[in-house]
């Protein structure tokens, strides 16, 4: 029964023995979770408004971060680079709408999904062609983001909080609040929800689908830029991020494809769960379990609740 002890009892003993370390692990998980949540947020925005599952969201994050750093390296001041990067995301949104989505109205979901995979390939190639394939470091200090760290005494030990992580959490919170306001209070936000509900009904009351799509892709672009800055500040800006971005899929499963709070909570659950599992249970299996934990968790979760935590109940009609 030794192995059973190792799985069921020992990790909790370790947690109890060093609560400060547990808190540190949870905090790391929380920060990673925020980033997953931000990526997932981009997916949810587009899925809500157009029913397109935008596979390219991950690469949009990289693209936004790269163009920000690229502009800065070209000698533009940081604030202007930020605005220019936003402009790039806007152009991308309009371009995608004009060249891709407009021609694919009424196609199957899978076809639209494939088109966004095509788009992500296009962006990978174009990004490397324009900005070069090597990793770059994010211009954290130039953007006025804090870089220090605070040490707090807790539970007989210490907890180290990086300021940039706190900033990431705060910015994520602000973004979500702003999007919530945008969706419920503004004219365009309501139009977005109308489109999400029923394309044809929305068209019949005079909402322009094309305009809405461009707006929502731009919103996803802004979220991508914020994610890119935060991610870049923690590690580096590189195309490796696109594999990480796939982790937003299990996050979406947990949270439901159409729920913004779901995306946030799903992200946090995955982020923290993954770190806890890696630190306390991963050693038993030889480590490296972070790569699949999120997916397997989502798989098991789906078996019991196919619509996710906050998703609307799936009703099938014949």
């Amino acid at each position, binding site marked *: 029964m030794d192995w059973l002890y190792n799985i069921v009892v020992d990790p909790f003993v370790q947690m109890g023995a060093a609560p400060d370390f547990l808190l540190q692990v949870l905090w790391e998980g929380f920060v990673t979770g925020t980033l997953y949540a931000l990526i997932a947020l981009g997916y949810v925005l587009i899925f809500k408004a157009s029913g397109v599952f935008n596979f390219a969201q991950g690469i949009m994050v990289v693209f936004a971060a790269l163009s920000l750093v690229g502009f800065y390296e070209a000698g533009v001041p940081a604030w202007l680079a930020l605005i220019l990067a936003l402009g790039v995301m806007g152009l991308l949104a309009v371009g995608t709408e004009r060249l891709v989505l407009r021609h694919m109205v009424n*196609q199957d979901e899978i076809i639209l*999904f494939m088109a966004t995979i095509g788009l992500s*390939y296009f962006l990978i190639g174009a990004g490397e*062609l324009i900005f070069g394939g090597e990793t770059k470091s994010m211009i954290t200090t130039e953007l006025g983001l804090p870089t220090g760290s605070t040490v707090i005494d807790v539970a007989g030990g210490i907890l180290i909080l990086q300021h940039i992580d706190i900033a990431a959490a705060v910015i994520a919170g602000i973004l979500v609040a702003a999007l919530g306001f945008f969706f419920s209070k503004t004219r365009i936000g309501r139009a977005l929800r109308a489109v999400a509900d029923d394309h044809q009904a929305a068209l019949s009351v005079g909402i322009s689908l094309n305009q809405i799509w461009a707006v929502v892709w731009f919103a996803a672009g802004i979220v991508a830029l914020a994610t890119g800055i935060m991610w870049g500040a923690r590690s580096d800006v590189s195309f490796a991020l696109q594999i990480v971005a*796939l982790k937003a899929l*299990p996050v979406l499963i947990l949270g439901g494809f159409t729920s913004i709070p779901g995306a946030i909570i799903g992200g946090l659950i995955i982020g923290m769960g993954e770190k806890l599992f890696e630190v306390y249970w991963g050693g038993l299996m030889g480590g*490296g379990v972070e790569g699949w934990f999120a997916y397997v968790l989502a798989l098991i979760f789906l*078996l019991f609740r196919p619509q996710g935590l906050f998703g609307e109940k799936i009703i099938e009609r*014949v």
Partner: protein
Amino acid sequence: MIYREAGQFKTSYKADMAKFPILQDRIAIWIYLVVAFVFIPLFGSDFFINSMMIPFLIFALAAIGLNVLTGYTGQISLGTGAFMGVGAYACYKLTTIFPDTNIILLVLASGLFSAGIGMIFGLPSLRIKGFYLVVTTLAAQFFLEWVFIRVPWLYNYNDSGAIEVPQREAFGFIVTGPAADPSVRYLVVLSLVVGITWVTSNLLRGHTGRSWMMIRDMDIAAELVGVRPLKAKLSSFAISSYIAGVSGALLVFFWLGAAEVESFDVNHSFLVLFMVIIGGLGSLLGSFLGAAFIWMLPIVIRAIPRVLGLDINASTVEQLNFVILGALIIFFLIVEPHGLARLWAIAKQKLRIWPFPY
């Protein structure tokens, strides 16, 4: 004018059920087979056989496997790469344990292992549909990748962590390993691909294939008319993973010669999915066309600057490759969402009435 079936009367059920009911098609298929089996090994250069034909055939087989699942049963999967990996590692273990058994038999047997694993990961498909299923197949992909790294037994405790193909003989020829002749390897791959395609096409015409298509078109309706979803979906996962597993074993044993986990990563899953979509969902011909298109395109793009005498460095060409591939995928989806196979069907229809407008 030339391609017209007028005057070809069917006088028996057998003729009516023939796979190629039109004489011209039968002639064409025999010509293709003769070219593939005789002319290419005789006259093709080693480069052509080794870097174009062998991988094309192997990926076409993988695309057929995925097409069974995605095109015919309507279950999207991003785990093809991992299922190919299961086949490859299983074949490697089998040939280590039974070194004297004919390697071709072992390749065919290794598919059984990947079929088993595929069925396990296919179980959630009974409750989960659409994009949700993508995530469960991604779970298979990433979990199996982790297993390939963390279980050293799979690669015989090699220091490199890679599987290296030993030399094996079959029917008196060296068929695997560095000493094997490309045309011998090509013929083995070709025979297996043709054989499996033939079996699959028969399967699709029969009861099994029809139940898959009913599940694809409307699962609830299929259930009501007596198709058991459990049986249909799991058999589809099993057959699809079997084919993917065989193609994975072929990939390592008859083409790469040595492989690490990178040969079966998620990018390969995407690559095969592209082949299926570009070629045409639910079409065997499409699997071949898609594989040819996706596999040959980068080779052509790489060759263009050399032919034109332009001095572009290799990494730029790689990036251009991505850009063009992405743009072409979008272009094809806009112009013809049903893939190259549909384009071919349209061309055939045109040929039939040519030169008259109606």
